[in-house]
């Protein structure tokens, strides 16, 4: 069985690098795919556009999704993932700077598995990210393929 893959959807290069750094510090050596907007994320998952012909057998074990994204918002992406049988069950963790209750509520409503706020302080941030990786990659059992 091949190694589990993590997908990060993040438009901010700083946050991207910090997230990668945090995962690294959390000793997570799995494959990490980074997409930079909502559209690209969907193209990757469904093998469209620049990712046409990608092996669709290989799906991310977990998706870390930012809400505020160019083109398609994180919530839009989540809705489309949940409406397709191939991606319906992929665990999605909403990782965002927003502390609005409204955002959290809507994320859960459209099917987020978890909602995590990005703290300003890097220590806390790194902690949160590595714990997430740990949980979703090591402890959580991915649903059996349909």
């Amino acid at each position: 069985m091949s190694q589990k893959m993590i997908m990060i959807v993040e438009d901010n290069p700083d946050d991207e690098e910090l997230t990668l750094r945090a995962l690294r510090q959390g000793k997570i050596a799995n494959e990490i795919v980074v997409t930079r907007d909502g559209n690209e994320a969907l193209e990757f998952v469904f093998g469209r556009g620049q990712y046409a012909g990608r092996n669709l057998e290989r799906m991310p074990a977990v998706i870390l999704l930012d809400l505020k994204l160019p083109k398609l918002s994180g919530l839009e992406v989540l809705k489309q993932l949940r409406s397709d049988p191939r991606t319906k069950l992929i665990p999605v963790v909403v990782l965002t700077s927003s502390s609005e209750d409204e955002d959290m509520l809507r994320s859960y409503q459209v099917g987020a598995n978890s909602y995590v706020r990005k703290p300003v302080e890097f220590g806390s941030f790194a902690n949160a990210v590595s714990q997430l990786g740990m949980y979703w990659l090591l402890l959580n059992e991915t649903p059996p393929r349909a």
Partner: protein
Amino acid sequence: MRRLIAPLSVRQKLLAVVLVTTLTALLVAIAVMVGFDLRTYRQSLISDMTTQADLLGRTTAPALTFDDPRVAQENLELLHYRPQIRAAAIYNARGKIFASYSGTDGREFPKLPEADGTRIEGNELVLFKRIVDSREILGTVYLRADYELYDRLVGYLGIAAIVAAIAMLVAYVLSRQLQHIVTSPLLAIAGVAREVTEKRTFSLRAPKLSKDEIGMLAESFNTMLAEIERATRDLQASNEVLGREIAEHNRAEQEILRLNTELEQRVKERTAQLEYTNGELEAFCYSVSHDLRAPLRAIDGFSQALLEDFPKDVPEEARRYLSRIRSSTQRMGQLIEDLLNLSRVSRGGLERRDADISELARQVVTELQTREPQRKVDISVWDGMRANADSRLLRAALENLIGNAWKFSSKTDQPRIEIGSLSDDGRAVFYVRDNGAGFDMAYANKLFGAFQRLHSGNEYQGTGIGLATVQRIVHRHGGRIWADAKPGKGAAFYFTLESDGVEKAGRDMAEAQA
């Protein structure tokens, strides 16, 4: 009579009066004259006949004395010159007819003479007269003459009728001519009165054509008209004023309506603007929460990365600077967090429900104790404190107030915090009291302003937004918040969660000024 006259016009009445009066006067005059004339006629007839009888007696006396009836008869025959005398006779002393004369009729003479005297028999005068000569009665004269009283009367009546007719005609013509003097002023007044009644033109005046009662009537009538004209003018003037006032009133009402409509329109516009601004504000807050945090995270993250990745290349001084940078970013992060909280308590609905304040306070206290388990603080929360309030906002307020008490009592020996309530005029006043650092009441007015701090960052951490947030929450509930403190002796914050009316607010202002 009156009933007959009543419906007539004044002119006709006057005429009637004149004619009736004239006729009456005429009749009386004629009656008197006729009566007088008839009396005179009778007396003169009697006197005439008596004289005639006397005369006959004297001329017949010798014939009687000498018993010569022929002479007597001749004397009597002379009477035919007086046709008025119908019959005459001479009686001798023994009462026998001595001689007789009979005019046109052949009536018999009385058998015996009567005593001296006259008498009227129908339309005849009968007269007996003794013939006396030197104390001896010689005989008696008998005369019968026409007494034409009836004919005279009829003649007089005829004359009277003609005279009356002429007089009445003259009176009629005269009065027709003269009555104008009386009636024309009256008719003039009546005409004016009629015109006034029909056309309601009170400016008309009756002409004063005479100086008598009618003239006075015209004057009085004119005075009355003037009075009515003045009163009418006054009435019209006041009517006009009233009309103007009503028009003014209507105009004002229209104006008010217009202003109201305008105001409503303006309110709508303002509301739309406000809604738009509110939307902008929400978008701004959303951006703040997202976009302002990301660079901070980067600054903090890469500062740490610098320290971790190049442990030997970063000199001690640089480390210190980096740590200053990191603490600043964290402070900035906290500021953003607090600002978002402040804006969050202003937005959204206020859901008032029965809230258990004691329970909320205990939750907050437990959180604080979990965060800093090493601190030993004597905290007492009263049981059974409840209020009709939005528990989410209320919890945020308690987090700030109790958090402040927790924070500012950190340097106190045996720190104590009490959360309880009082009753003020039956209204619940909740308080959070500590025995911490306190503050100078001189700065109490600055307590609730955003970014206002009474302690330096070195002494106590904080952004100065907490109390502004609490005040906003309390105000949204219609309540009040105030503080009581002394430097080094602790602070107490009191708040209510329901509106307490204007009177109370006024009293508070007075207290604040004192």
